[in-house]
């Protein structure tokens, strides 16, 4: 596994700080290891023990993990299963006919007639999985993927459904999957955030920060949003502050804080805050470095499609894909890569209500080659052995067109996700929708099952990973969830 040179410095910095802690804080050693969260009484005992001075220190899972890192490719706007992965030849036969017994009104209004898949499907890979011509590059990788065709959601509205996918609850205010993982496992690289959310170049998804928010978990565990285009806020001071002023302020602050800590020995939160400024200083170097894609060779840029100056959106997404690989490569625990922005009549994401074919012709190429290259690149670097890749979307789309339109309405009753990489059975499909793709009928699964499976692959029991909030022992999976054993290697 190749690492950027600066990561080697991690150990040194870490030793320095340990030395510092030992030198300046009498008796701190023992206390620092007590969980600050425990001190605040937030944990009910089943959660991990967290060192307040190293909240992101790598922690052991409940049992041996198949995967160390997770990369989620999140297709905002509800990407149609019928135009991508869920081949329904019967829809071609019944094209233009009404759906017998179908809903007269769906999310946006009256239903029209059944409409054939808007792209041709053909068998791909060794396993012969039928994938549409919308995604030829990803289609070549079906032998790496385990498809789940029978997912269901609790709501047919984008925001709540994204909440549900990312947090297990339709309401606002719950911790995201990445926050749960970071809380449970910390991360390998202490110079980078444990959890990075990479928004699409077209904008943030509908539920925005909820997808990477900490909810009621402490703020340490929230995702840090940045992309190849938009850097982390406040990473550097305004230009009006000179380098020497900056260094002097930092040095003076350290002295003031050390002196203060000397008067309050044993206050681990004070030591934690000193440590947080050190991590901030390291991030000030590490984040610009990891976001600097000029070190990527031309053939890699080409492979991802980041060299295509005719399609700036594709380039934008491709650059985000390269950033995602670099983050995974450098031990970031959870990378959430968004494809598609907020509701915009399908212009900026997969929400194809009115002109699905026309809009997917734009969205497909933006995602296809870069995402496929990302998967290939992870594999060729050996990273896929430790990394779980999940492609998902908040719900699916109806087999009918909407009345008077050439697009499909929201369908929370049956849609597709796929997993690939560490611990996942390759080249299989699990569960099914009915012959028209209206509803999941075989092995019906919920988002909770998907999330339970992701946690399981990371070595976590979704029932045991809890956090006490407002009198309730909260879980990512609420009171539901079963690991989808059939797709595990």
């Amino acid at each position: 596994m190749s690492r950027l040179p600066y990561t080697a410095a991690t150990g040194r910095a870490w030793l320095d700080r340990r030395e510092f802690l030992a030198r300046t804080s009498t008796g701190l050693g023992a206390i620092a290891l007590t969980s600050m969260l425990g001190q605040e009484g937030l944990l009910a005992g089943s959660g991990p023990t967290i060192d307040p001075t190293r909240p992101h220190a790598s922690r052991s899972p409940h049992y041996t993990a198949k995967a160390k890192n997770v990369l989620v490719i999140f297709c905002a706007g509800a990407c149609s299963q019928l135009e991508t992965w869920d081949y329904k030849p019967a829809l071609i036969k019944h094209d233009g006919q009404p759906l017998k017994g179908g809903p007269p009104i769906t999310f946006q209004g009256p239903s029209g007639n059944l409409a054939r898949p808007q792209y041709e499907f053909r068998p791909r890979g060794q396993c012969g999985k039928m994938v549409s011509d919308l995604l030829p590059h990803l289609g070549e990788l079906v032998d790496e993927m385990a498809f789940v065709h029978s997912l269901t959601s609790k709501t047919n509205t984008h925001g709540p459904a994204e909440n549900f996918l990312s947090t297990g609850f339709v309401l606002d205010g719950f911790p995201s999957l990445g926050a749960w993982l970071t809380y449970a496992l910390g991360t390998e690289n202490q110079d980078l955030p444990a959890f990075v959310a990479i928004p699409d170049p077209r904008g943030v998804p509908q539920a925005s920060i909820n997808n990477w928010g900490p909810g009621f978990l402490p703020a340490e565990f929230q995702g840090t949003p940045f992309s190849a285009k938009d850097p982390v806020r406040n990473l550097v001071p305004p230009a009006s502050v000179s380098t020497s002023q900056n260094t002097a302020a930092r040095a003076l602050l350290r002295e003031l804080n050390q002196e203060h800590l000397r008067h309050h020995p044993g206050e681990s939160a004070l030591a934690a805050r000193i440590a947080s400024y050190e991590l901030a200083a390291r991030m000030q170097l590490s984040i610009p470095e990891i976001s600097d894609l000029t070190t990527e060779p031309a053939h890699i840029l080409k492979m991802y499609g980041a060299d295509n100056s005719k399609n700036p959106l594709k380039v934008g997404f491709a650059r985000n894909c390269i950033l995602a690989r670099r983050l995974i490569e450098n031990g970031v625990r959870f990378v959430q890569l968004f494809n598609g922005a907020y509701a915009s009549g399908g212009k900026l994401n997969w929400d194809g209500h009115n002109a699905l074919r026309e809009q997917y012709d734009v969205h497909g190429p933006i995602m296809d080659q870069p995402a496929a290259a990302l998967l290939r690149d992870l594999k060729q670097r050996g990273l896929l052995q430790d990394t779980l890749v999940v492609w998902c979307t908040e719900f699916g789309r109806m087999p009918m067109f909407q009345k008077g339109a050439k697009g499909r309405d929201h369908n929370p009753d049956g849609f597709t996700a796929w997993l690939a990489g560490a611990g996942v059975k390759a080249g299989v499909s699990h569960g099914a929708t009915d012959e028209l793709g209206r509803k999941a009928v075989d092995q019906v699964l919920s988002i909770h099952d998907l999330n339970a499976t992701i946690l399981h692959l990371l070595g976590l029991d979704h029932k045991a990973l809890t956090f006490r909030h407002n009198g309730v022992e909260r879980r990512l999976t609420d009171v539901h969830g079963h690991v989808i054993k059939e797709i595990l290697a």
Partner: protein
Amino acid sequence: MIAARHMRLILLSIAIPAVALPLGAEEIALEHWAFQPLKVVAPPGADPHPIDAFINRKLRAATLAHSPPADRISLIRRLSHDLHGLPPIPHETAAFLTDQNPGAVSKLIDRLLANSRYGERWAQHWLDLVRYADTHGFEVNTERPNAWPYRDYVIRALNEDLPYQQFILQQLAGDAVAEDAATGFLVASAVLLPGQIGKDDASKRLARQDSLDEMIVATSDTFLGLSIGCARCHDHKFDPISQRDYYAMQAFFAGVDYGERPLHDPETAARMTANTKQLAVLRERLDGLQPPADTKRTILIDDEDPALTTHLKKKNGHGTNPAGTQRGYQDDPGSAAHHPNISASRYTWWDNTAGEDVFTYNPATSGRYRLWISWGVHGSGVHTRDARYVLDRDGDLQTKGDQHEIARADQFFFAGVAEGLTEKKPLWSGLQDAGIHELGKTSRLILRGGETGTGITADVILLREDLDPQEHPSLRPPANPTRNVERFPPVKARFVRLTAHATTNNNQYEPCIDELEVFSAGTQQNVALGGTPTSSGNRHGDPQHQLQHLNDGLYGNSKSWIADTIGRGWVQIELTTPAVIDRVVWGRDRDGKFLDRLAHRYEIEVALEPDRWQRVASSDDRAPYGSPFDSTAALLRNLPAEASPSIRSDANKLRQLANEQAGLQSAQTVYAGKFRPPDKTYLLHRGDPEQKGEKVRPAIPSALGRLALAPDASEQDRRLALAHWIASKDNPLTARVIVNRIWQYHFGRGLVDTASDFGLNGTRPSHPELLDWLAAEFIKGGWSIKNLHRLILNSATYQQSSSASPEAIEKDAEANLLSRFPMRRLEAEAIRDGILAVSGNLNLKMGGPGFNFFKSRGGLSGFPIVENFKAEGLRRMIYAHKVRMERAPVFGAFDCPDAGQATPRRSRAITALQALNLFNSKFVVQQSRVFAKRVQTEVGKDQEAQVTRAFQLALNRNPTHHESTRCQQVIAEHGLSTLCRALLNSNEFVFMR
């Protein structure tokens, strides 16, 4: 005060035993400590302060003791941070340090409690609990602009020390005691707006169920410390709350909706009622003067209408009217003297050559018409002063014999103006009468170059088949989504038809009409009622849009008709018997909420026999849709010269009153509970609104007592009954829960660690007797929160040092036993407010709409942050416009709740992002400079004095000798603001000790 009519209910609920009904299997649950009545306890031991007696007993058991009293500096900082969320002011610190009086600390506590900063600080704790925000949340997260009166209510209630019983009552049923803003509590959570909910009924039922759930959760978690919400789908796993209890609780709220309503304030309300009456009288008196519909032809030809104009010479471009409402500007609504701007905001211009034809208008109609011309005005003096308008009767420009000049325009001036100066801006001229002329089908009006000037312009012209001499053409107001009146001469009719020719939003949608009223001549009798409607086609599937809604006498979008064709369609009513009628009144949505789907081009016809249509009104003689229009000004403008002065004065009065009324309406709306007759409540299997079980009536959880109301209890009575039961001294939970919360905010953790869960799953109290004693004292003290603060803050437990011996730290590492005062990081608000207080920039303006942290919300631009704050943005952070989910820049990272779920206690994480924000953000860097400037102003250039002052302001102490030397060195080499930046980032500054 609780009104007398509610006393009956209070008595009713107090008479109910709160607990201890034998319920078999639930017995164990019922023995749970929190459900038992308060124990009467006496403080143990001889400590002068009862709280210390309880605390010391436990400390002694652990062979520990209190730490020594905190030093005075720590104490005044602690009290100021705790009660005000601000560091103390240096001269107050100095006064406190020298006050040797034994009552000095008590006096300080009283002074801090009496200051309004107290309410601002403690209201934030309450707002965390109720997840208050100024946006609606969820995916759209649009603004909730009138939420703030509730925030201000909480601040006021705390500052006034409103007894907690009343605080509860007002938040659940403030409408009963003229405290409407208090009911913002019921609807403080995020909610899906109608547009975000699916059109299918199941989605609507689920959304309603979710919004009701938020009310139950808010009420039970906040006041009772019980997580009743868990019983929505199944009986509670731990607490004796059944699913039935959940729905019985829900029934208390079955008539509560989310929404805005006028804020009850007797004085304004009286003024508005009086205005409404007077407005109605004036309107009725003046309605008859509004111009009747005119069925003679009216033709408007814009200079950019490709069908009815011809360019003879290449144009140079356009002049766009400036934004604004002044004369000739884009939104000029007209006045008593001139016509509103109907020019579509711009004119066309060419180089001017004397005698050269540049442009023609081609009306393509025949008959006798009065013409009005208009042009682009500009005060630069470039435009010709004598543009010629030449009528070419046969329309063949080669034949000159039939041409004759009908008007000239001085394009330096507005129409009708001939002296003075004109603004040097591209303006619309207004209309100038060009006389009456006979037109043939091919006639054209030529615009011909004048003798002067280098430019010539063309703008809209108006033709009316109307021979009456008129100073102003009396165009009727543009079609209005809310209400349109069509007056016409009395005519006998059996059929009335409205045909839509175009709809707003570029014909994207089918036309919608909420009600079509037809009035018998000279009366208020709507003869459309009971008639038979038919139409060109109806949109199917949506129960709110049905043909029969056209004449059902009900207004609003939810009772309207929508056609099945985009942009057009007709609808007609066959009256029950033929009648002589003189008015049709119609609208798209009389409630004024919907502006789309308006048929802004339409005609209205009547017939006595089928298909013998006679046109009585149309949009032709209305000003174009979207053009500015002031109908009172129009009334004044069109009043005949001989109209009596009293009519003019009525029209003027109407205008004034309408303005005042609009001001009053917008000034006092609050986002709060909206109340209506309650829906029926059903037990829902697995919480699924599609799986209804038996009907349920309002009742409290059976394990807690017996308060059940009749199924038909009125809406307000339901909430009052619930409020009185919660606010009763016999309710075992209410006083314990609030006392514990107050304790928690003072010490960082509660006696019960789980502040919103006193159920079986919650933590047991660390000091149960102390909790009961405090609750009893609280009730005895008249439920006064300030008394409770005094009680706690005057204890030695509170006033002890935060430093402790290594031995004490070993035994009481987390300060759970309170062997020292627990040190902790300040909250986001206290850090920001503190920085501003220290820099001297804090604006203490209270109340009203909040300031913004973001330039815009959501959409393509995301949440661009404000980095340079003016005075408004330097107010305390509780006055920030709180955006749900999206955390405030810089300070949101300090565990600011996102207002999604309730936050009974904030976590106090310490993160690198916080460090980056506080160290590098423009805000903190700027404030460091302001802070430095302040220090310099106060003590001058002496660096030692500067260090001392900076320490006093930020840390309320003098620097040590070593610190002073070191800091002077930093000032000398890197400037004073470098020191200030370090101080604002220091642990000593951001920790409460």
